[in-house]
Structure formats: structure tokens, C-alpha cells
């Protein structure tokens, strides 16, 4: 806290002296600055969307792009109750819907938009593998518009709430940097606008929920988070943090049971509305539910930098245990790793602690849960980006390794050029003029770490791009990347868990300081 206050004073002085690199851009306050940064971020997103997507021109299965397009085709042309059912018209083995109903509704709306301009690209059956100029463009534009309509407003809401009550004018530089770093997150842009997915919607809803909690609108937070859960079941990575923080808050109020009940009603009400078409019969309900939990796929996929995949180099988990035992094992490991952060939040709920809690629970899911994909690193990355103004170094470090952990995936999608450009842009942002002035403690250990690991990843990048793996170990480089990223993620999560618990120590002190301010 003392550190940050010192920083804010420094910022003030810079504004006073007029020698600020950015004050000319930010003097009108948060809204115009946000608008300006948002325009730039949109431009970057449009530029990334010029590049190939996953499974471009690779029949018969294509990739995520085709999956999303296929869902539009299905939802547009079939009645609601057949969306999740295997019928003659809906072959579930070809990219069957496996996301919750909100994704299906979103596909329907986007499908309507696309059908208006290019009916053949969402026609039943005949459109499989459809890749026309207009069709591709319209698909890209649906992601862009979702980003602009859901993610951007949510970030704006978060920024307004997060910096309300603080000295805005003096900290404008920091605020603008924070906006830019959230909106220009290279991982999210590459996955959504390069690889092709709609993570911006569920993550945007989650940010909205977080902002609502920070502004003490718990009911709104429940609605938004339930919607996020209903868009992508992976949003459950954040559930422990939301649950523990809200529970901790409730038991501090006058009627704890009533408060919990109220939240429960809101959550189940939202779920009921979203699932309305499927709750009339038990059969239909379980039909959908079974689609959402793809346990048949195994404990990990490809080379994801989590615990199971990394340790499988030494321990062959898949051979040692049957799937149902692995399920229990991974569930136990996940719960035991997010439990400490949950306990901290129930014990002493605080806004900062909540953000750390989100990061920790998402990390424990990423590292230990069942069936994790490389792309899931986006989830721990989100709370980290929200914490970026507190922990700039942590966030930069984490983003670079999160990016690196997805490198093989992006390489397969032929997205190496945007990968390089966006990493460069991100590094530039973290080095933006004026940020440099921060006094950095330079000790030997830290400087060794900050040169050794980036050097390693740089060399691995070059090796991966320029050399073929030895025939005996065709996935040697992927494994090395995974190992490096896993080691970084483990350190990071240990650090953030420790940070969250350290908050307890300082909580009294912070309260006093707040009163003074």
C-alpha cells in the first residue's frame, strides 16, 4: 500500500510537470481515454482476424471455426429441443453442441445475422466446411461485435469501479495503462480473433460480475456470473472464489441465512431462465447435461502445461489408473489446491483478496482439473490482468508464458506472425514510456531469473520454428515448452497464494489507511 501511494504521488508530480508522455492523451478523463484505447484494440483485433483460423481448409473435420459455424447451422435450422440430441438431422459426432444453452442462443442470434447476408454459409448439411470470402468475414465480424458489445463495456465498468474514489487525475497514466493491458491481452486476442472462439463473451460476463462485486452489487454479480457459467462451463474455474467471497460477505451481515438464500434464489432463477426449454422433462435436462461433461476425452489433451500432462513424462497416469479413478484423483487435487484461498476469503473477505482468490482458484483448476485445454490458461490470466496495476511484473511474466504455452497450438493454426506482432506489442506496452521510471529493486537473484527464463523461451521459440524434432521423440519440443511453462505457472501460483494470505496480515493496516484517505 505504501508503495502504491508513493507511486501515485510520483504520477501526480509527473502530471504537474507536464513532462508526462501520455497526459496529453488522458487529460479528458477516463471515458475518452477508454474510447481511444478501445478503438486501437479493435483495430488490432480486426488486423488479427485477417489471419488464418483453426482448421482453415483442412477437411474433413476442420477446426473450431467450423464448430462454431456448425452450431449456427444447427440452431438456425432445427427446433430447440433437438439441438443437443443425436438425430438424423443432427449428427453429434460432427461438432455436436457441447456448451451450455447460452452459447446455443448466441449461435442462433449470430446465425440469423449471417443468414441475412449469406444464407448458403449456414444452410443445413450443404454448408459443412463452408469457407467463402463473405462467410468467413461475417463469422469474424460476429466475434468482433461480441467483443465490442460484451467484453469492452465490462472492462469499462470494471475500470470505473476499480478506480472510483481514488485520485483519478493523478493516476490517469496508470489507469490508461491498465485499460490497455486488459484490452490488448495477446492471448485472448489470438484465441478469439485468430484461432476463433467466443471467449470474450464468457470472460466479459465474468469481468462484469467481478466489477459488480467490487461495487457491492452482489445480486447483479450473481446474475452475470451465472450467465458466464451458462455460456462456457469452464467459467466454473472461478466458482470457488465467487462462492467463498460472497459467503464470507453474507455471514458478516445481520441475517446471514437470508442473504445466502437471496443469492441462491437469484442464481437458480437465472439458471432456470437460461435452461427453460430443457427443464420440462428430466430426460431432456440430462441429455444436455451429458453433452457438457466430455469425460470420455481423457485427463489431458495435447501438451497442456498442467500437472497431469507434465508429470506424465514420468508417471503414466493414463495407464496406471482407469478414467473414473483419475476423475476422483483430479477432483481431490483441485479442491485441495483451491481450498486455502477459499478459506481466506470466507475468513476475511476483501476486494483485493477476491481478485487474488479468482486467480488462485482458476490456477488450481488449470493445473489440476480433468480435461484441461491449452486455451484454458485464459481463465487464470483474466484476474491476473485485473490485478495488473498491483502486480505488473507478475502479470507480464504470466502473460508471456501463457502465450508461450499456446505457441504449438497457434503454430498449428499458422498464426506465428500475429503471435510475434502481438507479443512485441505487449512487451512494448509493458515498457511504455513513463512506466520505466518505477524504481525497480535489482538484486542478483532477480536479474538472473529475469534473464535466464526469457532467454530459455526465446531459444525454444527459435528451435521450434527452425528445427525438426528427433524421430524418436516427435513431441520433444512441445514437451520442453510445457515443462518450462508449467514450472513458471507453479511458481506464480505459489506466489499468488502467499500474497492472498499475506493480505490477512495487512488487512487491519489497510483499513486504517483507508479511513485516513
Amino acid at each position, binding site marked *: 500500500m505504501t508503495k502504491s501511494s508513493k507511486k501515485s504521488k510520483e504520477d501526480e508530480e509527473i502530471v504537474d510537470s507536464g513532462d508526462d508522455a501520455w497526459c*496529453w492523451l488522458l*487529460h479528458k478523463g477516463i471515458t475518452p481515454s477508454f474510447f481511444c484505447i478501445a*478503438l486501437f484494440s479493435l483495430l488490432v483485433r*480486426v488486423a488479427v482476424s485477417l489471419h488464418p483460423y483453426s482448421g482453415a481448409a483442412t477437411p474433413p473435420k476442420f477446426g473450431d471455426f467450423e464448430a462454431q459455424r456448425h452450431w449456427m447451422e444447427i440452431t438456425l435450422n432445427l427446433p430447440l429441443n433437438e439441438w443437443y440430441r443425436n438425430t438424423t438431422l443432427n449428427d453429434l459426432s460432427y461438432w455436436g453442441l457441447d456448451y451450455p444453452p447460452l452459447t446455443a442462443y448466441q449461435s442462433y442470434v449470430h446465425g440469423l445475422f449471417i443468414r441475412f447476408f449469406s444464407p448458403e454459409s449456414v444452410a443445413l448439411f450443404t454448408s459443412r466446411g463452408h469457407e467463402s470470402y463473405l462467410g468467413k468475414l461475417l463469422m469474424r465480424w460476429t466475434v468482433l461485435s461480441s467483443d465490442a458489445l460484451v467484453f469492452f463495456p465490462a472492462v469499462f465498468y470494471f475500470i470505473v469501479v476499480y478506480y472510483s474514489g481514488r485520485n483519478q487525475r493523478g493516476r490517469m497514466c496508470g489507469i490508461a495503462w491498465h485499460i490497455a493491458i486488459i484490452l490488448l491481452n495477446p492471448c485472448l486476442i489470438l484465441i478469439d480473433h485468430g484461432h476463433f472462439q467466443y471467449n470474450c463473451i464468457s470472460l466479459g460476463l465474468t469481468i462484469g460480475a467481478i466489477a459488480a462485486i467490487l461495487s457491492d452489487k452482489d445480486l447483479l454479480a450473481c446474475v452475470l456470473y451465472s450467465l458466464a457459467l451458462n455460456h462456457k462451463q469452464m467459467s466454473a474455474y472461478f466458482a470457488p472464489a465467487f462462492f467463498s467471497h460472497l459467503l464470507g460477505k453474507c455471514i458478516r451481515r445481520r441475517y446471514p441465512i437470508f442473504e445466502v438464500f437471496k443469492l441462491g434464489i437469484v442464481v437458480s432463477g437465472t439458471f432456470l431462465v437460461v435452461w427453460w426449454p430443457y427443464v420440462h422433462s428430466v430426460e431432456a435436462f440430462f441429455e444436455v447435461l451429458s453433452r457438457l461433461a466430455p469425460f470420455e476425452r481423457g485427463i489431458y489433451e495435447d501438451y497442456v502445461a498442467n500437472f497431469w500432462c507434465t508429470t506424465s513424462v514420468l508417471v503414466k497416469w493414463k495407464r496406471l489408473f482407469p478414467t473414473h479413478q483419475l476423475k476422483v484423483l483430479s477432483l481431490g487435487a483441485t479442491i485441495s489446491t483451491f481450498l486455502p484461498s477459499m478459506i481466506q476469503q470466507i475468513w476475511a473477505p476483501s476486494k483485493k483478496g477476491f481478485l487474488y482468490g479468482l486467480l488462485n482458484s482458476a490456477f488450481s483448476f488449470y493445473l489440476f482439473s480433468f480435461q484441461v485445454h491449452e486455451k484454458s490458461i485464459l481463465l487464470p490470466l483474466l484476474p491476473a490482468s485485473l490485478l495488473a496495476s498491483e502486480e505488473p511484473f507478475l502479470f507480464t511474466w504470466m502473460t508471456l508464458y501463457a502465450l508461450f504455452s499456446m505457441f504449438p497450438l497457434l503454430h498449428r493454426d499458422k498464426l506465428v506472425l500475429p503471435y510475434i506482432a502481438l507479443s512485441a506489442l505487449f512487451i512494448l506496452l509493458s515498457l511504455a514510456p513513463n512506466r520505466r521510471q518505477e524504481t525497480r529493486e535489482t538484486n542478483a537473484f532477480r536479474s538472473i531469473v529475469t534473464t535466464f527464463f526469457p532467454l530459455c523461451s526465446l531459444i525454444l521459440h527459435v528451435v521450434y520454428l527452425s528445427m525438426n524434432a528427433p524421430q524418436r521423440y516427435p513431441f520433444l519440443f512441445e514437451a520442453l515448452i510445457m515443462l518450462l511453462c508449467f514450472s513458471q505457472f507453479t511458481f506464480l501460483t505459489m506466489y499468488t497464494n502467499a500474497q492472498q494470505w499475506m493480505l490477512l496480515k495487512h488487512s487491519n493496516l489497510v483499513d486504517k489507511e483507508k479511513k485516513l484517505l
Partner: protein
Amino acid sequence: MESQSTQKLKNPPKPPHNPISELWWFFAAATCVKLLLIPAYRSTDFEVHRHWLAITHSLPLSQWYLDETSPWTLDYPPFFAYFERFLSIFANLIDPQMVHLQNGLNYSSDTVVYFQRVSVCVSDLCLLYGVYRLTRNLDPVRRKLIWVLVVWSPMLVVVDHLHFQYNGFLLGVLLISLSYLEEGRDLMGGLVFAVLLCFKHLFAVAAPVYFVYLLRHYCWKGLVKGFGRLLILGTVVVAVFAVAYGPFVYHGQIKQVIHRMFPFGRGLCHAYWAPNFWVFYILLDKVIAFFLGRLGFKIQAPAASFTGGLVGDSSPFAVLPQITPAITFIMVLLALSPCLIKAWRDPRPMMITRWVAYAYTCGFLFGWHVHEKASLHFVIPLAIVAVQNLDTARHYFFLSIVSCYSLFPLLFESQEYPIKVLLLLLHSMLMWLGFSAQFTKDKTLEMAPSGKNKDSHLELNRSVIAAQKGGFDIGWVVWSYLVGLLLVEIWGQFLHPIFLGAKLPFLPLMLISVYCSVGVMYSFLWQLKHILVS
């Protein structure tokens, strides 16, 4: 208050940053976006430049201006050909097919796209250096504003990095020349300008301004000294031209080179009319022809049409007299003359950038076969003077939006539509924020000393509020013009296809040129007025 001031005393003022490192940051950020745009739409100019790589690499120098393997013959001056020859060394190392005269035709593999696109990004370093030279002695805020206007110029992104050309590089050379002149190093300025002319002869429109200015400011120093300086200047310019054209004179091809460089057979206007004076002329012709036709006169429809794209030798006008290159030449000189007289009377280094920009504006408005891209030649230099005072800033704000918008038809595919719109919006937003910050601060500083010592703090606060209200105001005329721009765009993109369908397909483009040419004409008159008043 007191504690604050003591604190300030404790912290000594930080040493100013090295401006070049910050400029690098701006440049690198722009380069990231440019790299992302590599797979976007590219015009035939891309193949033109690729073919020039092949010509200069595969053929001996004596054949460069004779080759007719492809319709895209070499029509830039020799230095640009040498530049292509230099690039072709690397191109040959990367992919020899790129520089093969026959096999390379319409070659469009990833390597050639990446190579050419990256070569534009790298050649922009010249622009970086030019901007650095021009701005290194300015105050930090003005400097940064200029960087944003030039290094992040949406027009350069559209023309160089989407459409494909090397304007950033060439304008960089122009800026270097201007920076020498502003420093008072006239000989170097003249030399660099001569080099620029040997890269792209279209820059010659400003030659009269350069000539008058150098004559008066550099050579006009008494009879003997002046004559000596004139001799030195002449020698330098002749030397540059000798290096460029010498080899072709040696091969006896100078006529052929000149013929290639000035293809007057191309007609007065380009297929898409650049927003200049001739738009009004054509329009007037059509209107008169229409009314005469109504009155019963027999009007022969012109053999060549402006909207058809191809313009032959026959007169495209139905009623009004034919325009020849000589007429346009005289018109440009006439328009230039007030500026030349001014430069003759009072050659000031601080005015040279404006004069050169004005010269390019004249060339753009009255020139023969002008491309809409040529508006870059005056918009970029004007960015340097835009930050000087509120008036110039207002004018630049208006002009750069109009000329950026007039480039929209270059990118006609829907994939690039959001890109050009976002570029323009972002640019306008940055200009608005930047200018209002700059002039709010200036106003506050102006008003601050007027207050008495006692209640100066109060006074200062009041003036801050007043300045924030007034800061950067562009006036309702400009506002309504810009709203009209929006309406033109909405008509062209949405309403025209709905109401008229495929009928009158040239109407949206015509509207854009006519509407933008009003804006450019206004800018011309504004610049003229300011040159005469100053």
C-alpha cells in the same frame, strides 16, 4: 502546499528522456500493427513493385527502361530503380523466383508478400529519421503530437501498408530535406531534395519553391559570394542528377527514360477522380451539356468517359474546352505564384515547410492525372506545422480527416472496411485529444501571468476552467462539413445499394470526390491566406 513545494525541491528535476528512445517506442508500436496487416488486400501496385525487383535484378541497366515483359513498366526515376535493385539482392537470397522476369509474373506466394511488406516497414525508418530531425528541438508534448500525426498516420498505413507503395520512405527524405532547411543548412536541404526528385519526380511540384527560396536565402549574399554559392548549389544538384541519370545518358536512353516517367497519354483524371479542381470542371461540363441538351442543342456525347476508367486521347468533354498538360502546368504555376513572391520577398526558414506543403496542394488541385494518394505530399509536412498554434491545428484536423477519407475508395473490399474506418476514427480521436491538451495548456499559460500575486492561484483555477471549455473548438462550419462526410459515407455504403441497387454505380465514388474536393479547395484557400498574411 508548502510541503509539496519542499518535496519538489527535494527531488531534483529528472533528466529529460532521450527523445529518440521514445520515438522508437511509437515507431515499434506502429510496426506491430503494420505487421499484422500483412495478409490484407494489396493493389496491383504490389505486383508493379515486384516486377521492378525482377527488372532491375535480371536485366542489365541498359534494359531497365526498355523492358516490356509486363504492362507494369518501370516509370519511376533512376534512384528508385537503384533502390529496387538494392532490395532485389535480398529478394534473390530469399526466393529467386521473386526476381525472375518471366516466372515471377503475378507471383504471390507468402514469401514475396512477407518480403515486400516487410521491406516497406523497414524503409519507414527513413520517415522515422526525418521526423526525428524535425522534432528533436521541440518541447516534449508538441514533439509527441507530431510523432502521433506522422508515425501513426492512417493515410500512410492505408497507402503504404495496405494498398502498397513506398511513400513513407520518400516522405522521410522530404522531411529530412525540410529539417535541413529549417536549421539553415540550405545546401544540404537542396541536395537531399535533389535526391528526392531522383526517387520520385512527382515531388518536383515543390521545385519552384525550393528554387526561389534557395536563391534568396542561400545565394543572395552579394555579387561574388552569391555567385559562388549559386555555382556550388548548381554543381551539387547537377552532380546528384548526373549520378542518377548519367548511366542512361551514357546508353543514349535519356529520351526513353523521360518518356516513361511522363506518360501524358494517361488523361486528365484518374479512373477514380482525385478530389481536386478538375472535378468541378468535369461536373460543370456535364451540367452545361445536360441543360443545352434540354434546350434542344445537339450535344455529341464524348467518346471517352471519365467514369469508364480508361481514358484515351480523345476529348472527354462535351462542351467545355479540352484541357492539355500545358494548361494544368500553367494553372499550377499561377496558383503557386503568390507563394513564390512571398518566398522571394521574405525567405524565412520557419516558413519553408508551409510553402512546400502549399506547393504540393497546388499540384494536387490543378495537376495532370493526379492520384488521390498525392494528398500525402502535403498532409504529412503540414503535420509538422499543425502544432504551432490553434489555427493551424484546426486546419490540420479538418484537412487530415478529409484527405484520409478521400483515400477510402482505395480499399474497396469489405474485409478492409472496418480497418479503414477504425484508422480514421482513431486518428481523429487522437488528434482531438492531443490538440485540445496542447491548446488548453497554452491558454492556461497565457492567462496565468495576468493575475496578481495574491490571488493568482484562484485566477489560475478560473483560467483552467475557461480553457477547458474553450480548448480546441473547430467551429460549426467544419463540424457540419464533417457530419456531411459521414452522410456521404452512409449513402455510399448503405442507402445507395438499398435505394438504387446496381443503378448509377459510379455515383457514390463521384460524391466522395466532389465532397472531398470542396474540403481540399477550402484548405487551399486557407493555406493561401495564411501564407499571404504571415
